Structures are given as structure tokens and as C-alpha cells.
């Protein structure tokens, strides 16, 4: 536990993490109704990574993420109504229903999008960071990706370039130990993820147990160094765990690629509960009540919104 955690920060983090947890749970609940006609890759269990990291960023910092992007979108300040509407395929969605859960975006919040092809947003984030440096801005780009993305060549090419040019970017690897059903040890040779980044001279740090506060303070430090022009890229390996299946809601222990014990051990250190306990009951309850209202309203908004009209099919291919 970080000693510097003050209560305002705690409240902010709890608000963020509770909201995401409950949004994901609501999606799970609604999913069997088929109103969400889209694959959803839920962040249940992994919320703390996005929460800890994004709470340390400024509004005009930029985030890129993956198909498992609900948490990062919300943590960075993405509009909740438009996210749920997007899942429902509605015209009020953040991409007017054209993109679904796997491709969220909210430019106003600095959330620049996600991709369903593993590792593809990593170079884009590096390019965005390049543009920041080009324009001499003191903003930072953060890119979230899974442990599987590290196996793609694009990861290496991106890190090499970011390090060469000392770009303002923080690479955040959400290491949830699996790529779909494949454990990391079957996919990755050598000394681990941080060693990869270090071979490019990029400072790398592993944060255990999905520790929200540790992530927050690590990213705060890294971002401050970057903004001050004292460092180039940073790499963070955030240990975390997915509670439900790779895609879609519900348990997958019956597939036997992971164990009940492993899951239980991670649930025992659940960050939503931990932050609630640190914050104290009355404040936490107030935050929960607020969130519940907002979430209910968002699903209601989505339900009541119209579908896009047929003429939208061929719109937006090109910009004038």
C-alpha cells in the first residue's frame, strides 16, 4: 500500500473502479437478452490497471487500448451513455453503432480507439507520441495491451522506435497470464516481459496484484519525468487477472485451462473491495449510489436510442 494515498485520490479511484465493475456486471446481466449483438471482452477483475493508470493522466493525455477496452475507455473519461449505446448498435453510440464493443473511441476524453487485431494499436500510440514530440507538447501517450501482444513483432519494432526517438509514451502491458486459453509460459521464452523492454534501454517495472495505488504512483512518476523532458518511454507490466471468459460473460473454469484456486486467489485480493475498505463505508456507499444511477440511466439511454438509418451504411468511408 502506498503511503501517499490521500482520501481525495482514494475516492477518485474508487469511483472509477466501482463504476467500471458495475458496468461490466450489467453487461453480463443484459447479455443473454441479445440486446448487445457484439462480442464483449469484459474487464472484470482487470479494472484496476486502467483505473490506476488513467487516474494519473491529464485530460489531454492520450490513451490507446484493445478490444478489451471498456475499462480503459471509462477510466480515461469516455462517455458512458455513448459506450452502452455503441454496444447496443445505436446511432447514439460513440461510433454510431458501426464499431461495437471492440472499437470504442472518445476523442474529447483523449481515448483514441482500440483494435480487434492484437498489438496493432501499439505502433499507432507510438506515432501519436511522435506527433506530441514533433509539436513540442508536454502530453503523454499511454497504450494498453495484453501479455499476448508482446509476442507480435510490431511490439518490438514499436519499442525500438520509441526508445530510439525517446518518445513520450508509457507502455502498459496488462499481464493477465493468458491469451485466450494459453498460459504465458507456453508462449514466451526468456526472462519475462520487463526484460524485453529493458533490452531496448526502456525502464521497466512490474506491479504485482493489480495494485491500483502502486500503478497510480508509478505512472504519475513516469509521466512527470516524461513531461519534464527527463525521460523517454516507460514500460509497466501490470499483473492482473480476468474473472470471466475471454469473450462473453460467465465462468469458464469448466474448460480447465486454469484452476479454481488461481481464480480464488485473485478474487481474494480484489481491488474493488480493497479500495472500498480503505475509503471507508459512508463515502464508498455514496459513490456506489451515484454510480448505480448513472449506469441505469446509461442502459436506459441505449435502449431508447434509435438504430442508425440505412443510408449510414455507405457514409464515412472517406473524408472530404
Amino acid at each position, binding site marked *: 500500500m502506498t503511503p501517499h494515498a490521500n482520501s481525495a485520490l482514494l475516492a477518485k479511484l474508487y469511483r472509477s473502479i466501482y463504476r467500471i465493475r458495475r458496468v461490466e456486471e450489467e453487461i453480463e446481466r443484459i447479455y443473454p437478452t441479445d440486446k448487445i*449483438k*457484439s*462480442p464483449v471482452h469484459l474487464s472484470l477483475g482487470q479494472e484496476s490497471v486502467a483505473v490506476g493508470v488513467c487516474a494519473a493522466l491529464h485530460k489531454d493525455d492520450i490513451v490507446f487500448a484493445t478490444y478489451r477496452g471498456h475499462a480503459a475507455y471509462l477510466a480515461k473519461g469516455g462517455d458512458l451513455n455513448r459506450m452502452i449505446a455503441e454496444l447496443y448498435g445505436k446511432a447514439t453510440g460513440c461510433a454510431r453503432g458501426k464499431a461495437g464493443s471492440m472499437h470504442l473511441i472518445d476523442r474529447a476524453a483523449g481515448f483514441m480507439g482500440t483494435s480487434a487485431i492484437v498489438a496493432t494499436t501499439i505502433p499507432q500510440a507510438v506515432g501519436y507520441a511522435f506527433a506530441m514530440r514533433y509539436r513540442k507538447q508536454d502530453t503523454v501517450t499511454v497504450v494498453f495491451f495484453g501479455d*499476448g501482444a508482446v*509476442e507480435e513483432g510490431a511490439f518490438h519494432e514499436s519499442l525500438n522506435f520509441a526508445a530510439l526517438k525517446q518518445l513520450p509514451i508509457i507502455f502498459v502491458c496488462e499481464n493477465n497470464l493468458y*491469451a485466450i486459453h494459453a498460459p504465458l509460459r507456453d508462449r514466451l521464452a526468456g526472462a519475462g516481459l520487463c526484460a524485453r523492454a529493458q533490452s531496448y534501454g526502456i525502464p521497466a517495472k512490474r506491479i504485482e496484484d493489480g495494485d491500483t495505488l502502486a500503478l497510480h504512483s508509478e505512472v504519475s512518476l513516469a509521466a512527470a519525468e516524461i513531461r519534464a523532458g527527463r525521460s523517454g518511454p516507460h514500460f509497466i507490466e501490470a499483473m492482473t487477472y480476468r474473472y470471466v471468459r475471454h*469473450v462473453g460473460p460467465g465462468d469458464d473454469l469448466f474448460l480447465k*485451462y486454469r484452476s479454481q484456486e488461481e481464480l480464488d486467489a485473485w478474487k481474494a485480493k480484489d481491488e474493488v473491495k480493497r479500495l472500498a475498505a480503505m475509503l471507508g463505508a459512508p463515502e464508498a456507499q455514496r459513490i456506489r449510489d451515484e454510480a448505480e444511477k448513472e449506469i441505469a440511466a446509461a442502459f436506459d439511454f441505449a435502449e431508447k436510442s434509435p438504430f442508425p438509418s440505412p443510408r449510414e451504411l455507405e457514409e464515412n*468511408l472517406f473524408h472530404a
Partner: protein
Amino acid sequence: MRNAAGEITYAQALYEATVQEMERDAGVFVYGLGVDDPIGMYGTTLDLHKKFGADRNFDTPLSEDAMTGIGIGAALAGLRPIHVHQRMDFLMLCMNQLVNIAAKASYMYAGQVQVPMVVRGIIGRSWGQGAQHSQSLHAFFMHVPGLKVVAPVTPHDAKGCMIAAIRDNNPVVFMEHRMLYNNRGFVPPEAYEVPFGKARVLAEGDDLTLVAISHMVVEAIRARAHLAEVGIGVEVIDPVSLAPLDMDTIARSVEKTGRLLVVDNDWTNCGASAEIIAETVERFQGKRAVRVARLGYAPVPCPTTKPLENLYYQNGRTIALKAYDMVKGGVGHWEPHGEDAKEIAEFKGPF
């Protein structure tokens, strides 16, 4: 697996072909993301590692580019790799090895090497697959000399093409449409090859030749039923293999009908439908006036929301309407009714 009629599903047919070839030839192995996981690629590779050992059915890191090159290297050494991709879209990461190496090695080295490799790509559709999980892109592979491309539609052809692909001494891109996996059909239990370059006339008719690719064959058959109600006879052709492409069978049919509609499971621009139309008119010009048309994906990325996704794809009705127009010369109005595709609306995974 087989029911009383000797039928199995498309997915089971792929599994059966793979097992039989792995039993026959110790050099055949299957690899790719998820092939040895508890889902086993929709059952098509389920537990093959238990049957044949972990060397012959193994998961890989997320490294499509190198894993393609690794398959090519193993093939150069005389093994027969089958590389499986959950989506055709991921093949965009493999283009360098497929286009610059696999397609060229035999020619470049004057036949001294061969690359007997099968690249299985699954086409996603429905349930919000969206822009990056629904592409087919077979036009790319047809464009490049040195690759073979097949897109079997029936369980029978799935098995026979898979066996032929594994035995083929050249790189074969093997396209599977996820919406075909649960279709059942009679499949001989023994091993057999469906030869590449032989199209199938699935149904005869005198008024219009309807060539359909991959899952669009299912919709073409629906369209034929619609059109039968208004007395229009449609000959439905499934090319089965796209490279080599059996233009003779298509031309023979067009000779009879004078009309050719090609429906692709892909965009039309520089697509398989352009190729088939161009080749057909080159053959018939000066001999016979033929009417031709193409249908395919709407010329945009695939949207996720259902109302737009429905418009993005061709279906029995849109195909029937186009064919009606071609036969009636644009005169008259008609609204086909009856059953629409159910497998699309009902699909809910696995993904």
C-alpha cells in the same frame, strides 16, 4: 459423429480429413493460435495433440508473420504444415511470407524446392464481428501466381478439399466460413480428394448462371428457390476452388443461359467476381451476347450494428432481385418472400 444418413457437419468433416491425413503421413502437423485448446478450433482440431503428440498439434505465440515463415521452412524440409487462423483478417500479418516467399519459392528456385503447406483461414460473420473480423480477401491470394485457393461449401467438399490440400505439394489457402461449420451433409468415411479446378453445378437452370463463393452459395440456393416461384430457372455453380478456377464449367453454363451473376463473399473491386466476369466476356465476345453482373460486400468496412450489417451482405432476396432484373431486363417489380437465413440471426458464438 455420423447420423443414420451418414451425415456429419462441416467442422467434423475438417476434423476427419485432418485425422486421416495425420494417420497416413507422419509429416502432417497442425499449428496455430488455439489449435490445442479446449475448444479445438470449433472442434476441427480438438485434442489432436492427445492423439498425435504435442509436436503435431500445437499452439503458438501470437506471431503470425514468423509462424508463417516457420511453416514454410518446415515445408521446405519436407513436412506438411497446416497453419490455422481464427480469422482470415489475421492473414494480413502473413502477407510477406505468403506472397514474397511461399508463392515464389518453387518458381524462383526452378522447381528445386516445394512448399506443401495449408493455410486455413476462417471467415467471421455476424454478431458484430465488424470491420476487422469479417474479411475474406481471397482476391489477394488469387491475384498472386503460385498460391492455390479453395473455399469448399459442403461438408463433403470440406473433407475432400482438405485432404487434397494436405497432399498438394504447393501452398494452399483454405477458406472456411464460420457460418458453414454446423451444416450437415453426407461425407464418405474413407479418405478421398476433391480435385482443385473443378467447379460444381449444384442445381441446373436455363435462364441464368449464378456463381456463388463460399457462404454465398447458401444464399444463392435461397435465391434460386425465390426465383423458381416466378418461373425463372437458375443454374447455381460453386467454383469450390478459386485458384485454379474452373472457367470451363462456368462458360458452359453461360453458353446455355446467356446470363451470369457472380455473388462473392468479398468486395467486388478487383475481386473474384471481376475476374470471373472479365474471363467470361473475353471468351464469349463476338460469339454470343451475355449479360453479366456482380454482387458482393457493400464497398465499405463491415459495420457491427445489425441493421447496417444486414445491408452489408448479400442474401437470398438481394440476389434474387438482381437476377430477376437481369432476366426481365429491368422491367416489372417483384418482392421475393419466404424464409430468410436463420443461422446468421441465431448465431451467438463461440467466436
